[in-house]
């Protein structure tokens, strides 16, 4: 019931977000045609505006946008005018999503074991090295790691290609650079989760029952300890799937990240609103999924 209501709420929520994004991009001074063919004569600009209905009052434009949205059409990009926003998303999303999924897998695959062992092996080297790794990764942003990786692995050792998006080998460096930062966050959350679960009563009960330490940790403690990681993973995945501007620029990968930034810089209204909608849908759906996984992992969780 609860989830059904959440799904029904999705529509109004998206409406609010689309309205906000729609108004927000138009609030910024300047317009989408400022940068081209200077000096553009007033007539040309007026015609362009009329063609894309930018001369109408904003609520009329919004109505038009909603009409398109109902048919799953975000309209024509105002900057790349022979492409629709749907085209751009269809071209760039698979690239960004592949990179994002790989980086997501990397950060989970590295972060969860490190966080787990640094909590379980307290007072041993695993704890110290694991915590050090986590805090270092959090404090070294991707735009430092990526150039360093390029310089050392790509140029000095000539092991891996440093740019473009062609073969699986091309993915190694960007995925590492992108995933390392998040793996630090994940390791930290995992560790805090484990440390939070270990003193609880059901663990003591399971230990009293005579379960082996491995079963105890993996079957009983781990699912509970994963909860904070999972609630972080939802927004993280939405972020990663829609592309990372820095990594895509450094490695010259044709993903969505650049469209996000350039769209907002060039007041490409339709593109920005389309991308915001894409991000918002992903975020909301993934958050819903997170709440659902919560119920699966923790039998105590009840949503009225």
């Amino acid at each position, binding site marked *: 019931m609860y989830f059904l209501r959440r799904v029904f709420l999705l529509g109004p929520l998206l409406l609010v977000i689309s309205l906000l*994004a729609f108004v927000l*991009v138009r609030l910024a001074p300047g317009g989408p045609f400022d940068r081209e063919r200077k000096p553009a004569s007033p007539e040309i600009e007026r015609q362009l505006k009329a063609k894309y209905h930018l001369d109408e009052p904003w609520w009329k434009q919004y109505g038009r946008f909603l009409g398109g949205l109902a048919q799953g059409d975000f309209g024509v990009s105002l900057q790349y005018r022979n492409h629709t926003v749907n085209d751009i998303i269809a071209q760039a999303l698979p690239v960004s999503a592949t990179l994002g999924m790989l980086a997501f897998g990397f950060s989970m695959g590295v972060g969860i074991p490190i966080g787990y062992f640094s909590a379980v092996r307290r007072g041993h080297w695993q704890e110290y090295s694991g915590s050090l790794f986590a805090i270092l990764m959090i404090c*070294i942003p991707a735009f*430092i790691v990526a150039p*360093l990786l390029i*310089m050392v692995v790509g140029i000095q050792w000539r092991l891996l290609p440093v740019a473009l998006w062609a073969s699986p080998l091309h993915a190694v460096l960007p995925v590492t650079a992108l995933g390392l930062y998040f793996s630090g966050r994940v390791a930290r959350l995992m560790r805090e989760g484990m440390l939070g679960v270990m003193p609880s009563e059901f663990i003591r009960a399971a230990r009293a029952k005579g379960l082996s330490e491995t079963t105890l940790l993996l079957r009983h403690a781990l699912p509970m300890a994963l909860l904070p990681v999972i609630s972080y993973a939802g927004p993280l995945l939405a972020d990663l799937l829609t592309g990372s501007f*820095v990594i895509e620029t450094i490695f010259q990968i044709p993903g969505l990240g650049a469209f996000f930034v350039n769209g907002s810089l060039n007041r490409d209204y339709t593109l920005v609103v389309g991308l915001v909608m894409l991000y918002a849908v992903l975020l909301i759906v993934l958050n819903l999924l997170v709440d659902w996984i919560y119920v699966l992992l923790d039998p105590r969780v009840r949503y009225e």
Partner: protein
Amino acid sequence: MSELAAAQIEQLEHSDSPHLSPNQRAWRRFKRNRVAFLSLWVLLCLAIVVSVWPLLLKTLSATGAAGTSVAQQLEPDRVSDDQFRSPNSRHWFGTDVHGRDLLSRVLYGAQVSLMVGMVGACVSLVIGVLWGAIAGYCGGRTDNVMMRMVDVIYSLPSIIFVIVLITTLEGVLKAWLSRGTTLGVDTWARVIFLILGLGAVSWLTMARIVRGQVLSLRNRPFVEASQALGAGPVRVLARHIIPNILGVAIVYLTLTVPEIVLYESFLSYLGLGIQPPMASWGSLIAEGADQINPIRIYWWLIVFPGAFLAMTLLALNFLGDGLRDAWDVRVDR
């Protein structure tokens, strides 16, 4: 730290001097945390070096001909023919594409990065505390609407917010400048917008924390007493509630500073933040990344600003964690 150890420490503190305020006790706990205390010292040293460096250059150039030439070499904005020198005795961190001394540029960049981080965090503190306090104190429908707004803003990519804010503010400034005020505020105006923009997008978590605290304070006897004596909501908030949550808010503030420093670096990296010839750590790293080529490696252009940025973030994080543990603030997301 286990509960037992915490209890023992508590006991020790009581036996030392029984009349410590909660803040004094928290400060003692904080001082026991060596890493956090060390971080505080690192940050202080950095702040001192950063503020003394320009003065040092000035005094050097006043000492005579030799001193002047050294000072000129180290001038952060002075273009010279010594391009891409690797670190040596004259330029400790090497020089960049325009032959400028990298050490000086890193230290000047530190001014901008640190200032943006600290002032931006203060902006987010003001907005977050006011928003959270009003939402928590009013309760009911107001609370609902205000917190749902926070949720909606959470689900918009913040980069769009920042870009719109910065460009809008810039438009306002240009209109204001064209009415004939002094020029030269231009370079700093950009920094100020950056600070405002970053502060305006990073108050959301602060507002949530403050609201939670206010909810628990709202029905305490001292608040009810004040209400019974006829104090209006503004007075209750200003005199009784906000002073009580300020400690928690300031602890969280130290965790906001690294976030904003990072965000500023990211924006400057994109070319949206600091404009050349001004520098911040982010823009320095971006300049270094631009010089990557397959023939020669200019590692110092990335390693030194990157190391300073990472070290500062590390210290700020340790400091924030230490303060949070000492004051026992729970950050529920």
